[in-house]
């Protein structure tokens, strides 16, 4: 029997608002523990929440970008449970009336050299809530090499408590780990383009819980699902789903039942494991948050949000192709990250050389050094990249020198001209200074010279290479070739 995988994803996004969801505390990652708190986000007796308008504006952007229906009447609810990192012991969330529902997101799929296909994944709902604080369980290593032991206490950092969270719940319409991966990528891209979240999994600004079940192909009824929680990279999400799909399929094939439970992804062993069983099922006892009045989203407000919506990735791609007459492939590469697209559009996209630099050595250097595009952009602003392109166009440096120069630009923040001048990297086209080097190379490579003279004309390439090496890459290869031919043919 063939089996079919059904996956639903719940994504939590931290919104990068100036302040928290219900108070004026700063919303910032990485500050000293408990420095960004006030009586409101500490849940002190007597305090009251006040809705952050910016968070709601951002949330509406997301709802609109995900093609959701925006309800004009929405409200907040309390979700009650006891957790030491949740100061009020209830979370202000949205239960039966989320502000956005019934949307969709298109994902692009490539499989085994088949052409790109698009699949539409339904979005069940999008709602707003507040984040919890963070628990730290200190451990120490008594002796070198020994196992770490937990100290007998836990610490609470409430800087994160009250940070606005957007929860995006997909319909169970994702049918493979690859699709899940593509969904997350597309979602992240849109959210970054909307400028509402960093979507940085490492910093926890994007978190993903997955639900996976398996059923005989063609069945309408969903199989029993397992939830996998707290996975902290897209790659792990994929790996966890691959493992979980295989585990459940094997169970079904053996005729054994799948147990509905919450599992964890163990990165080291590359398996999913059941979480410690809960003592009892959660009953969140939702009820309407009496400290907040319902939110009325009128046409005027929605219009204002639409007016301020940044351009979405697909729209941008289409515009770039038209505006700059560049290929779809080039566009896709240049827009894979909003920061990169912005960078390109601030100048480099307009000249072929600068564009090629971005598509070539810039990407290469970022991959090699494993840095974010943003970091690259800070050190090498677009005008510096344009200037490097100019140096190439004017043949001041050899194209093969570009990687070296860019590397030095990234290290020092200097301009290409400064580096070329400072290190004497200018292209040498002056025949009188090239001739002695060429003669030296001819003298030292008698065999290759003999091959050339014997009719193997391609041997000249090897000699050019030798000259380039001897000139530390600075020689103008065109001139070298001419000079070589002249000297050898004589």
């Amino acid at each position: 029997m063939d089996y079919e995988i059904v996956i639903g994803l719940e994504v939590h996004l931290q919104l990068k608002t100036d302040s928290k969801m219900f108070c004026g505390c700063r919303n910032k990652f990485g500050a000293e523990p408990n420095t960004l708190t006030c009586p409101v986000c500490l849940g002190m007796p007597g305090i009251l929440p006040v809705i952050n308008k910016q968070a709601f504006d951002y949330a509406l952007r997301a709802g609109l970008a995900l093609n959701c229906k925006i309800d004009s009447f929405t409200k907040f609810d309390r979700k009650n449970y006891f957790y030491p990192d949740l100061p009020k012991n209830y979370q202000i969330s949205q239960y039966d009336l989320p502000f956005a529902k019934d949307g969709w997101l298109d994902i692009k799929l490539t499989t085994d050299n088949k052409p790109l296909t698009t699949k539409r994944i339904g979005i069940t709902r999008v709602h707003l809530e507040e984040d919890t604080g963070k628990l730290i369980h200190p451990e120490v290593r008594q002796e070198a090499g020994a196992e770490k032991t937990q100290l007998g206490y836990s610490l609470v950092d409430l800087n994160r408590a009250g940070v606005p969270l957007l929860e995006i719940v997909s319909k169970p319409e994702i049918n493979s780990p690859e699709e899940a991966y593509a969904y997350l990528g597309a979602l992240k891209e849109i959210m970054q383009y909307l400028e509402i979240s960093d979507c940085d999994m490492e910093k926890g600004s994007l978190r993903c819980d997955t639900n996976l079940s398996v059923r005989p192909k063609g069945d309408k009824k969903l199989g029993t699902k397992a939830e996998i929680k707290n996975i902290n990279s897209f790659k792990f999400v994929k790996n966890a789903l691959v493992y979980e799909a295989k585990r459940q399929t094997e169970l079904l094939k053996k005729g054994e039942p799948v147990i509905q439970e919450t599992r964890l992804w163990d990165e080291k062993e590359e398996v999913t494991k059941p979480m410690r069983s809960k003592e009892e099922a959660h009953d969140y006892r939702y009820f309407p948050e009496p400290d907040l009045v319902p939110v009325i989203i009128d046409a005027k407000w929605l219009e204002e949000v639409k007016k301020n919506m940044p351009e979405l990735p697909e729209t941008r791609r289409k515009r770039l192709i038209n505006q700059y007459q560049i290929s779809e492939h080039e566009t896709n590469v240049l827009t894979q990250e909003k920061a990169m697209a912005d960078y390109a559009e601030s100048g480099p996209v307009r000249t072929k050389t600068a564009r090629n630099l971005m598509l070539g050595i810039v990407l290469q250097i970022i991959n090699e050094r494993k840095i974010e595009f943003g970091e690259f952009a800070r050190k090498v602003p677009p005008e510096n990249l344009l200037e490097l392109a100019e140096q190439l166009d004017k043949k001041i440096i050899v194209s093969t020198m570009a990687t070296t120069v860019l590397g030095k630009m990234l290290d020092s923040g200097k301009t290409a001209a400064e580096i070329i001048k400072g290190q004497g990297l200018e292209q040498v086209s002056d025949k009188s200074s090239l001739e002695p080097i060429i003669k030296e190379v001819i003298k030292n490579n008698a065999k290759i010279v003999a091959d050339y003279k014997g009719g193997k004309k391609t041997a000249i390439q090897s000699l050019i290479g030798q000259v380039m090496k001897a000139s530390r890459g600075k020689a103008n290869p065109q001139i070298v070739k001419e000079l070589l031919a002249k000297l050898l043919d004589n």
Partner: protein
Amino acid sequence: MELYKHTALEIRDMVLDKKVSSTDVVKDTFKRIDSVEPKIKAYLTLCKETALAQAGKIDEKIRKGEKIGQLAGIPIAIKDNISTQGIKTTCASKILSNFTPPYDAYVIKRIKEEDGIIIGKTNLDEFAMGSSCENSAFGPTHNPHDLSRVPGGSSGGSAAAIASDMAFISLGSDTGGSIRQPAALCGVVGLKPTYGAVSRYGLVAFASSLDQIGPITKDVRDAALMMNVIAGYDPQDSTSVKEFNSSKVEWFKRLEDGVKGLKIGIPKEYFAEGIDKDISKSVYQSIGLLEKLGAKTIDISLPHTEYGIATYYIIAPSEASSNLARYDGVHYGYRTTDYTDLMSMYHKSRSEGFGPEVKRRIMLGTFALSSGYYDAYYLRALKVRRLIKNDFDEAFKKADVILSPTSPIPAFKMGEKLDDPLQMYLCDVMTVSANLAGIPGISIPSGFTKSKLPVGLQILGKPFEEETILRVARTFERETDYHKTKPVI
């Protein structure tokens, strides 16, 4: 000097006219406290030093001829569930016995801005849950009119402090009658404002959708004075009403305008069986007096009155179960000394920290909200609440105000109802509906029973028409001496 016998407005004017210094008023008040507090036990915390320091500053301001606030030099007592920066705010609970808030409630900020002097924090039923002021973790308060009786609850301390002249104005909170009922039992004025008229910021929540802060005073004019200070929009409270601009309300101007032509609704459901005979007799006399003064009475019906208590005792505990979840021994307040893990820390901290009435309501609320019961209890209660609100909307199409007794019975003996929570809950039968509907209500002294216990008259009004109920109350007060009849302590 017996300054304590004056009303707040009289004292304020004496201070402003330099007939007496603010310092003398505070000293005299504390002298009074020293002499009667041991019998009444209205206070949980007294702030003599800071009060004297504050009085000194006000005297200095007056001496220098600087601008001075409306509460200049008036000693004010605050129910101990309202946050006061740097002063313990215990909610009369063991769980918060050592809690000192780092911030002021909105109303406290306003009092300070208007040069009022906070002299102490008053006793209450733990977390404002109760109708007798006996559910305090720190012991009960006594009714100044009969020390063997309760002052009513939950703002019993605030009402008793006014009745015994240990403060000129006090603040209480009213979730189901907690200002009006103790005001009635102690023979003072107690006003529950319209929901949204006074910011709840800093009021330790019991039931958020019902709670309101309000004044307890010696007479109606003082209540108007205090409303003038504490009412108004506060951006820190989302349920505070923007359209209600307190500065535009002429709190005093219409106060003396009388009741001629005013239509007073008499709801038949509030004069049913179960009301103490002396009380109903007194209330009918009061109605007669208002008619004599030019008001018209009309019979009205509030048909869903009988569901008020049941509805209230679903909604209030439900919200309370959530509001009180934060007291878990983790972040602040009492933590048990004996625990093995997180769960046992929660269990024991809460078991040891909360009193029986609070536990009872947390359990009630948790049950009513739990899945499978939510629709049958909480959701249904919300629907009935709407019906009760509709009753009032209908009634107010015909009547300008509604009159009733405040409490069905006068102050009862301490301990009398403590073992019968349902009997205790019935004390709120006349008051809860106003909270469910969000409308304002006032209780004023309107007579005494044969055994010389105060009787309270309740006047309910349309939303944000505090002016009207204050005017009716003032008209009544002008013609009677009940509010001037002081207990012998």
